[in-house]
């Protein structure tokens, strides 16, 4: 016990068992990781708040490198990512809109210095293993990035003459400039993989026979779905598969389109098709989707951009027939439907009984889905496929039923997005490395985790804990007349440094964790009183469902955990609802004994080569 005159804090608390929630195990990296909602939601688990702080500090190159190690394509993703991080952002739960995470990533890419000195160098010593990477898209490039510095000899195969895959062929230049692709793909090619571009791989068996130690299949989902309705064959010259058409535009094979265009489909490909058509001469471009507008698969911001380019999106229209006259398309006939749901919430589209709608047009672009296709993989060499035609792939190791063959990206589990492909690439690279080192690929290397106190003084922290009340900023756009006049003029201009600073300040620093040491707590209530969000309660323990209802503010968001301490001196426990914590650090500032501390939790996922 302490001397007279000192705060008596030693050996407090009681270990007597109390019914209720067990104390939270903060030594488990998953606990604090989940509190960093954006990082948890990101398939590649990019440490988002870490790089946002660097952007706020004007350290763009450092911010870029945090991204580069994690997601490989910061400049590309900063323009095209599906942003699973943003719906997860805590800011949306405590204010209104999430932090513009994706566009901040782009700021790091736009304003960084030359970072080539910071990139890994080509391996000077090779380890003798040869890995084939089929398809030079984001998944394969990630595998190459991770394996090349370790000394693996990687061979990139692609049907196109340039590496990049769908990033190059499917995303229009007005969303993603060619220089950005060249730069970031170039960083990987700088690691000196062997390139076999411009010709298709026709046989996996032949590839394996060539003696590769491992084959990674990252061929994406290159096959656009067709729409087999009457008139399709007769009007074939005027009905294009959206994906193929976008690729043809990208390669410069298609330079114009007729004036009246109908785009079928409600995904991001449909949005890219209609906006591209507007730029190639389409004057009346209409998007028709089967489902309700609210259920469209396209990202909300892509829909918004399409609408702002005078492209009407008509919903609840099921295409029935291509109308044609003498081999010329004249229009599309649609049945009008409405959405109904059964007791299980299953959706069905029911005809409304109204007369069919005919939209007159000269060209139709079909963008109703895409799928993986593996005509080049022999079915008798040990790679099993399921009834949907997808390979049987282990979701942890990304290994197929053939010990040397791995899958990733859209080729593994169907169409997702770039960031998912990158995440797959990292995991597959780890597996390939483990397998070739003779280790069990199911024994995954743990992430690297650091927990560092941010305390600098009585009321000073190593992070900016003041909570900005600013609303989300809109990214400036090119004036519409100029945007529509060019296929390659980038529509989004990106934040300037000042706008970026304001947006970065909106980040709540969710990675700076509230860490509670119950032995130091004297139960003075200071943290309870100061907490702006009423997150903290000292109370008797109880079962979680019951406890959630009687906290200072009810903890109704079941996706968010409760942080529960072991019993304190009074027998009560500290319960913190993580849901809407602002990470402002006021609890720690007001704590007289340091029982609360703000500690930065930095989690970096394992990479190939980790031991």
């Amino acid at each position: 016990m302490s001397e007279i005159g000192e705060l008596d804090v030693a050996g407090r608390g009681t270990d007597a068992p109390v019914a209720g929630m067990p104390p939270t195990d903060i030594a488990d990296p998953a606990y604090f990781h989940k509190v960093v909602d954006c990082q948890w939601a990101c398939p590649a688990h990019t440490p988002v708040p870490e790089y946002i702080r660097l952007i706020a500090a004007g350290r763009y190159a450092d911010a870029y490198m945090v991204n580069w190690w994690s997601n490989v394509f910061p400049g590309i993703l900063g323009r095209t990512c599906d942003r699973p991080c943003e719906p997860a952002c805590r800011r949306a739960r405590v204010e209104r809109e999430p932090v513009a995470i994706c566009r901040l990533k782009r700021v790091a890419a736009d304003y960084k210095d030359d970072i080539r000195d910071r990139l890994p160098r080509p391996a000077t010593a090779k380890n003798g293993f040869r890995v084939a990477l089929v398809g030079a898209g984001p998944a394969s490039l990630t595998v190459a990035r991770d394996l090349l510095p370790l000394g693996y000899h990687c061979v990139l195969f692609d049907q196109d003459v340039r590496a990049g895959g769908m990033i190059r062929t499917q995303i229009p230049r007005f969303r993603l400039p060619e220089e950005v692709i060249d730069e970031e793909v170039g960083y990987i090619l700088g690691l000196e993989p062997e390139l076999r571009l411009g010709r298709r791989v026709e046989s996996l068996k032949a590839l394996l026979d060539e003696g590769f130690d491992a084959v990674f299949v990252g061929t994406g989902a290159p096959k656009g779905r067709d729409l087999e309705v009457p008139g399709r064959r007769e009007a074939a010259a005027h009905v294009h598969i959206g994906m193929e058409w976008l690729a043809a535009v990208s390669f410069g094979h298609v330079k114009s389109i007729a004036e009246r265009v109908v785009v079928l489909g409600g995904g991001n490909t449909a949005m890219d098709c209609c906006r591209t058509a507007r730029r190639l001469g389409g004057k009346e471009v209409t998007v028709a989707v089967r489902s309700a507008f609210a259920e469209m698969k396209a990202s909300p911001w892509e829909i918004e951009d399409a609408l702002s380019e005078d492209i009407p999106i008509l919903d609840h229209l099921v295409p029935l027939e291509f109308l044609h006259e003498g081999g010329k398309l004249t229009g599309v006939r649609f049945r009008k439907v409405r959405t109904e749901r059964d007791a299980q919430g299953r959706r069905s589209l029911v005809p409304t009984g109204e007369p069919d709608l005919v939209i007159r047009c000269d060209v139709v672009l079909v963008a109703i889905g895409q799928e993986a296709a593996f005509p080049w993989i022999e079915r008798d060499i040990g790679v099993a496929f399921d009834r949907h035609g997808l390979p049987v792939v282990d979701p942890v190791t990304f290994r197929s039923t053939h010990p040397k063959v791995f899958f990733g990206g859209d080729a593994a589990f169907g169409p997702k997005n770039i960031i998912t492909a990158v995440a797959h690439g990292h995991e597959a690279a780890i597996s390939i490395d483990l397998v070739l080192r003779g280790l069990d690929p199911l024994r995954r290397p743990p992430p690297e985790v650091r927990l560092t106190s941010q305390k600098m003084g009585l009321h000073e922290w190593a992070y900016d804990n003041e909570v900005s009340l600013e609303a989300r900023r809109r990214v400036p756009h090119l004036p519409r007349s100029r945007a529509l006049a060019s296929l390659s003029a980038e529509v989004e201009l990106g934040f300037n440094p000042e706008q970026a600073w304001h947006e970065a300040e909106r980040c709540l620093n969710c990675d700076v964790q509230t860490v509670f040491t119950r032995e130091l707590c004297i139960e003075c209530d200071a943290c309870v009183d100061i907490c702006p969000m009423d997150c903290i309660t000292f109370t008797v323990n109880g079962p979680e469902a019951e406890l959630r209802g009687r906290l200072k503010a009810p903890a109704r968001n079941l996706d968010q955990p409760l942080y529960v301490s072991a019993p304190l001196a009074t027998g009560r426990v500290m319960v913190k609802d993580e849901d809407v914590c602002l990470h402002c650090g006021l609890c720690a500032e007001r704590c007289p004994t340091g029982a609360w501390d703000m500690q930065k939790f930095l989690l970096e996922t394992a990479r190939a080569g980790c031991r």
Partner: protein
Amino acid sequence: MTYLPKPKLHHPALPKNALGLTHRDYEGAISTLCAGCGHDSISAAIIQACFELDIEPHRIAKLSGIGCSSKTPTYFLGTAHGFNSVHGRMPSVLTGANLANRDLIYLGVSGDGDSASIGLGQFAHCIRRGVDMVYIVENNGVYGLTKGQFSATADKGSKSKKGVVNPDSPIDLVALALLLGATYVGRSFSGDKAQLVPLIKGALRHKGAAFLDVISPCVTFNNHKGSTKSFDFVREHNDAVNRLDIILPQKPITAEYEPGEVIEVPQHDGTILRLLKLEADYDPTDRVAAMDYLFEHRARGEIVTGLLYVEPHSTDLHDELGTVATPLNRLGEAELCPGAAALAKVNAAHR
């Protein structure tokens, strides 16, 4: 060194009271007291009590003297009236304000230095006159602003942070308040809001002099071993005689108790103070018995807390003086200065 303002953002599911306000709307400026100060918890309890009673903040006048405790009115009810007076003189200013405008709710906030030393006389006379008010002493037993000397409420034999033993007898403000005729007397602890918030609510609804002695550990100078006003000591020696539940007029009574477990004390405005007995024989409406109990238990080293005394049909200074129902500050010159003839009449009555 700066303190961040408390962020304006609040919990999305924060409850609202009948006025449509959340408890955040009852806050004041950010506190500049030491981290962990018991006084901040008392401010939070006042905020909670006013929120729960649906009191419009501008209906409250906060008055204080000098000291750590007397700084706190800045930290709650930012939109209430406030007067930070001279050291120990809060009771006089409060009495004057109350006489001038009887429509406001008067909340005097003071400390053990402000009320038990320099302002002891003011305290005594304000209580004995029955001014309608809530008088809260945030009692930490030390002079925190001058680095922790014993105050007049420090117990004899308790030790200072440096180990010096206090040789003087303490002033027990609760005993004094009972002796001087306060009609609502309670003691509580800053670390027990479940007890403190209802006591403040009851005091706010009480007519007459309501006095609350709230032990509030000074984390900087008086929270060590040997102190009798530390978190640990108060928790170990707390003898709560009852738990208070405020039943507002027209509000249904929800909790059911066995007969004899509960004492109900009606207030002048229809409020019912419902007291769950924790000490079977304690009768909070018996002033003499309350004083006996208090002295007995203090001799045993126990700190008696709860609603210690309440007079069901209390009166206040205005009743005694027979002042008009309309607040004086709303009367016109004609009513306040009725002229020479009226004065002559008054003088004649005294001849």
